[in-house]
């Protein structure tokens, strides 16, 4: 199984268990459908960063109070803010399948989540090389809603990236990103290469989660 299929299966709650053939077929079909109909879009900007030792992070005029984020960004001089979305076409497909084939709707939503992560990973890999050229190393992606990084900061991402205009990424009054298959994140850029955890899932304290990466 390639990694995105593996991720999708994890989102479907299979844990360590083997996935049945029928579901696997659906996963494959759903990725094909997404590849055919969906176009990812991404916008990013690099900002000067200040991480004083008091649980705050300052990105240009934006001040974020989050110990988790501060820890993640410690020692970084710059930050990349980014936003990415798969667009409203995915939402429409999910709604459609919710009416005709709920299993497909469920699988599609898992695949879309995995596709979005993969899209971000691929971009980050490219960006990592660019940054390395300028002598910077990247920290893991960190998004509003992780740990104590307040979700209300979504609006700062949307404003500072001008993401509504650039990629059609907006949010609701309740700070939910629209289209729903969208991500905002910040990545610290540091002069030293500190070994970090690969990804966010293992970091989480909810160890009994059925979606946990094994």
């Amino acid at each position, binding site marked *: 199984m390639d990694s995105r299929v593996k991720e999708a299966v994890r989102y*479907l709650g299979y*844990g360590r*268990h083997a996935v049945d053939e*029928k579901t696997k077929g659906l996963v494959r079909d759903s990725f094909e459908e997404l590849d055919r109909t969906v176009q990812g879009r991404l916008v990013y900007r690099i900002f000067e960063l200040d991480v004083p030792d008091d649980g705050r992070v300052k990105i240009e005029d934006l001040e974020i109070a989050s110990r988790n984020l501060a820890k993640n960004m410690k020692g970084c001089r710059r930050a990349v803010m980014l936003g990415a979305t798969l667009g409203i076409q995915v939402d429409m497909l999910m709604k*459609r399948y919710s009416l005709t084939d709920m299993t497909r709707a*469920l699988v599609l939503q898992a695949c879309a989540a995995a596709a979005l992560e993969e899209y971000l990973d691929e971009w980050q890999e490219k960006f990592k090389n660019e940054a390395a050229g300028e002598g910077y190393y990247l920290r893991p992606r960190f998004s509003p809603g992780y740990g104590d990084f307040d979700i209300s900061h979504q609006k700062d991402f949307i404003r500072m990236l001008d993401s509504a205009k650039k990629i059609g990424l907006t949010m609701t009054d*309740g700070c*939910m990103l629209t289209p729903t298959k969208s991500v905002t994140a910040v990545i610290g850029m540091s002069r030293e290469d500190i070994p970090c955890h690969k990804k966010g899932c293992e970091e989480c304290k909810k160890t009994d989660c059925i979606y946990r990466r094994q």
Partner: protein
Amino acid sequence: MILERLGKELLYFDGGTGTLLQEKGMKPGELPETWNLTHTEEMVDIHRQYFEAGSDIVLTNTFGANALKFHNTDYELEDIVAAAVVNVKEGAWMGVHDGREVYAALDIGPTGKLLKPMGDLDFEEAYDAFKEVARCGEEAGADLIHIETMSDTYEVKAAVLAAKENTSLPVFATMIFDEKGKLLTGGDIPSVVALLEGLRVDALGINCGMGPAQMIPLLEEILKYASVPVIVKPNAGLPKQKDGQVYYDVTPAEFAKIMREIAEMGASAVGGCCGTTPRHIRALVKKTEKLKSLSVREKRKAEDFTIVSSYGKAVILGEEPRIIGERINPTGKKKFKEALKNHDIDYILREGIAQQDAGAHILDVNVGLPDIDEPALMKETVTELQSVTSLPLQIDSVDVRALEAAMRIYNGKPMINSVNGKQESMDAVLPLIQKYGGVVVGLTLDEKGIPDTPEGRADIAGKIIEEAKKYGIQKKDIVIDVLAMTISSDPEGAKTTLAALRLVKERYGVCTVLGVSNISFGLPCRPAINSNFYTMALQAGLSAGIINPLSEDMMRSYDSFCALMNYDKNCERYIGRYAGQTNTAPAPKNEGITLRTAIEKGLKEEAHHLAGVLLAERKPLEIINEEMIPALDTVGKGFEKGTVFLPQLLMSADAAKIAFAVLKDAIKETGDTEQKRDKIVLATVKGDIHDIGKNIVKVLLQNYSFDVIDLGKDVAPEKIVETVIREDVKLAGLSALMTTTVASMEETIKKLREKKPDCKVMVGGAVLNQEYADMIGADFYGKDAMQSVYYAQKCFGRQEI
């Protein structure tokens, strides 16, 4: 007056302001619009520079003013807009030295929010925001309204309507495309042009997003379809980043060079967007001096295309024949009528999806029944359909109020069914087309009925075309239906219709539609007559048949015609659809299994087949209780134990649903009354737009024969309470995904307790746990979908599994 000059001479807009504002000291994060009041001198100076550079039209610094309504309370919108207009006029006074007439354009940008149903901003709410800005602008003395950088057809529609209905100013609208010529929301160029022309903007075009060079291929396409003047306002190239700063690097000289080419292609008004400066505009004006008068440029003439659109891809009539799906219509359909009466929108949506899958290009929508609030239902159906299908719709009603209600909120340029040659009909329908845009179906009948000669019908078509002209409706926006009369009562009926089809096309060059299946009314084996007549009509030049795309016979006629006439290149579609197909229906695989196993394994076809087989020997209720419920229980228990996973649970549910449908029909036929079912209301709470969990719970509850009233997502507490009271519901299920929306869940529970204390509340969703559920006062927390089924059974005193 600007409209006297527009399209006759090349007009110049201004360029970007962002860079200039930064140079004058604006801080990141500051709202530029507030500078109209706090930095008047600087603003006037920027406008002055553009007028001096040669701009005829300068935009007010109000791009985000409508968004201020949402985000900023320190300033009055009215004051900002008024100051912005005055600043431009001041700039003109100081910067125009040659006495030329110049204009202050009220700039309106997007709200920055996504409209419903994908986002949470109401169409009418967006309209109101735009309305306020537009009104303030006119009061302050703006000369025109310029709506720009729109990436969503729905939002631009709200803005244009607001501007046109609340002011008497000229309205321009420009959109932001990507390099492939698509909007962020998926719309293509013909669909955007069709929408904006339909709304009667005075000029349309493209701005931002890319540099002048990248705009050339897009402009070419816009010019192909647009018959109104076209505006082009590129950035100074594609954005680049250095040290955290965004910059653009096309120089004034390069910019002017390419813009000259753009003017030569046929643009009527040019200027710049992000990264362009007064120097760019000055260079542009100089470089295009000799092109100022339109007569020295090549006179362009857009071809006449009959275009209908939704938010996505446009459908062009008149080339390859198109299919209009007829199935969303209660006429002669018992189940459909029942769905309308029960307000079962899902049923209607499934009819739409099925037709799209079968190959329809446009969907006819008719929801007319006696004793039904047709305008409200039409509006709701159209909105909902547009959230699951990107096909353009044909709004079909005899009720003019229903037509208008739907046309107003329709995303795109719809087809309207219909107007006819009666003066009364034309007086009622044509003004709607004039206002909202649309392609209208003209029926060839009038006060004297339906003429029985081709000439008589063509004459009425001519009358409709002439009358429409008075409203400024072009011929390309009229399609003629010459009407098919059944041959069982009119033996010459088919011949007359075919001759009339040819005649109207020959005489007026218009597109045609036809409700094909009327032809066989009263005859046996109707598909045979229908499909043959369909082929004959296509051969006579029919642009779009209104047919049942789920009919194999009709689709074979269509596919064969397209293959034969080389519309289907290399017979690709034909081969794709029919290769390997035999004439008999394939028997389901997995012979020899029971219904119980079919459901446990989630085999839909088999479940459908076996339910039918079992009905021959057993009663429906017996099958449900002895085969299906035990199967569902087994799967449910497996899910709890962790041996069955959610996709499998749902596959079983889907298989059971199909078997239930077979049994339900049987129950109705035998006259057995269905058991009265317990009602449960489900809703994803206000502010929350993630509803997949709720939808899963819905499918499972329906499986256990609960009557689920699904209120959807982002549902206000009041609506939930109101429904629970009206339907006397004893259990409500609420879902929420994030901490930010648990508050509205809590509020809903509080209101339910006050107004309907005997209604239990179960909650679920990613952010919830038992502790949280207790805190907000829920009766039950369902950690997964099966738990809610068990709790529902308990609530209604059913036996637990």
